[in-house]
């Protein structure tokens, strides 16, 4: 035992069995953990089509997509102007309104506050956009965070105009 330390056959066998054991335990535990992730039936509900022909300027609707509300707002000229004239340096999460609303009249975004997931109230708050009643985040007319604890702007989901009256979300 007191002689120089040499790697023996036995050390190799120990290391190899521990390594194999670890892989085996990992492979066994993974299904037990992964079963909690969104399942196939939840993922299957990934797109929604919405008819927007009845929405007037200055009106907005909320639709449910993947269990979350999506705000679809047909913005007025003032709202668009207000959102576009903001200096990007003032923003906590700088994003151009042009990038958030490719068709300036239509703002389509997830109606979920990026702080802790509440649904903000429309036409409220200090910036004329949305206000979250839970912890006081203010969003502007482009849904960008302006004041309060939320870290980022409200998310823009993937969507497209199928025709001039229908939006497909997801």
């Amino acid at each position: 035992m007191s002689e120089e330390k040499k790697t023996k056959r036995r050390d190799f066998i120990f290391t190899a069995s521990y390594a194999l054991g670890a892989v085996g335990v990992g492979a066994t535990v993974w299904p037990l953990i992964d079963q909690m992730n969104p399942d196939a039936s939840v993922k299957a509900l990934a797109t929604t089509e919405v008819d927007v022909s009845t929405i007037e300027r200055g009106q907005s609707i909320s639709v449910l997509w993947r269990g979350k509300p999506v705000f679809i707002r047909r913005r007025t000229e003032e709202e668009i102007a207000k959102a576009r004239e903001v200096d990007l340096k003032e923003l906590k999460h700088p994003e151009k309104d042009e990038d958030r609303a490719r068709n300036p009249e239509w703002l389509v975004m997830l109606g979920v506050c990026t702080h802790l997931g509440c649904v903000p109230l429309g036409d409220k708050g200090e910036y004329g956009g949305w206000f979250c009643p839970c912890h006081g985040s203010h969003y502007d007319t482009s849904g960008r965070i302006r004041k309060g604890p939320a870290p980022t702007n409200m998310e823009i989901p993937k969507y497209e105009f199928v025709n001039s009256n229908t939006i497909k979300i997801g």
Partner: protein
Amino acid sequence: MSDHEYTPNSKFGKWFNDRLPLLTLSNHLSDYPTPKNLNYWWTFGGILTFCLIAQIITGIILAMHYVAQADLAFESVEHIMRDVNYGWLIRYFHANGSSMFFLAVYIHIFRSLYYGSHKSPREVIWIIGMIIYFLMMMTAFMGYVLPWGQMSFWAATVITNLFSAVPFIGEGITNWLWGGFAVDSPTLTRFYALHYLFPFLILGLVILHIWALHIPGNNNPIGIDIKSPSKDTVPFHPYIVVKDLFALLIFLIIFAFFVFYSPNLLGHPDNYIEANPMVTPNHIVPEWYLLPFYAILRSIPDKLFGVIAMFASIFVLVILPWLDTSKVRSAIFRPLYKQFYWFLVADVLILGYVGAMPAEGLYLLVARVATAYYFIHFLIILPVLGQKEKTLEVPLSLTDPVLGGSTNDSLMSEQKKN
């Protein structure tokens, strides 16, 4: 803790006890020497055991009638309230039981803080207690989600979203917790499974908590080490048992007042509206027992740091035995600590109050000051007090102030040296 070997009287008892020493255990529990000066603040351990057992029994009964599925949950709770025989009683008992459980646990924790029960050699009891407290909060939160009312749904949304503050993997964690892209039926079902499991984990930890307590024995209002068994102790049964039962009786009167006369006082009317993922109630608040932590969360204007501060406010309690460095346990002999103790009590009550108010203006300012003071108390005041405070002279034994002398020889010799 009794030194003498126990032998059962009956022949069958002896035979059984040799094979499984349950009778030795029960003898230990009834003879367990307890300081004779324990006051009524020490009865909350027994009261808490009652609360846990009562919640488990009423909970199992409710589980026989409840359906953990988003389309049926709300209705099944109304079914329990209206159709099930005595369903209203059992549900009101269970719902108010959680409030009473927390009321008792807060008294139990603040009793420890006052009399220094968290200090050496009782650190492990304290840490197990803190784990129990944390599990209690998780259990209560998940139980609150089950009725699937508006408050249930939005409490679940806000609390699970706390994990989205984790950098990079936050969104993955929340989707994993939800089993979807928002709180929905899969979330409800798994919360139900865990809400059923956790009380039994708590029960196991309670057994460890009591086991760890029976190694050094109870602390006492004077906070000195006593020799046990001795003139300073009485056997647990009947002395403490009877005292605990009397305290439990008083506690149950208050409990019954809530259950029978104001069963919804501690709840929130919005929770009688079925969950609606499209509308957040105007003013969402957690149950009263979580308000101080909620106030700490909201007082920090940054999402990630708010969440960190909230978890830190609990973690700071876990390491308390090493922050509170004073050798003297009981606040009775610590004139300065006694004052800071009451400041802390006031601070936590203020945090609870502002946690229930909207996070704006003066409320937000008060919440920020109170949050700062909470951490200052544990991280600065306590370590400094341990060094600087001039403590009063501690008696040698429980009878010392009256009769002089001590039952503890090592304390006596130490005193002579001084």
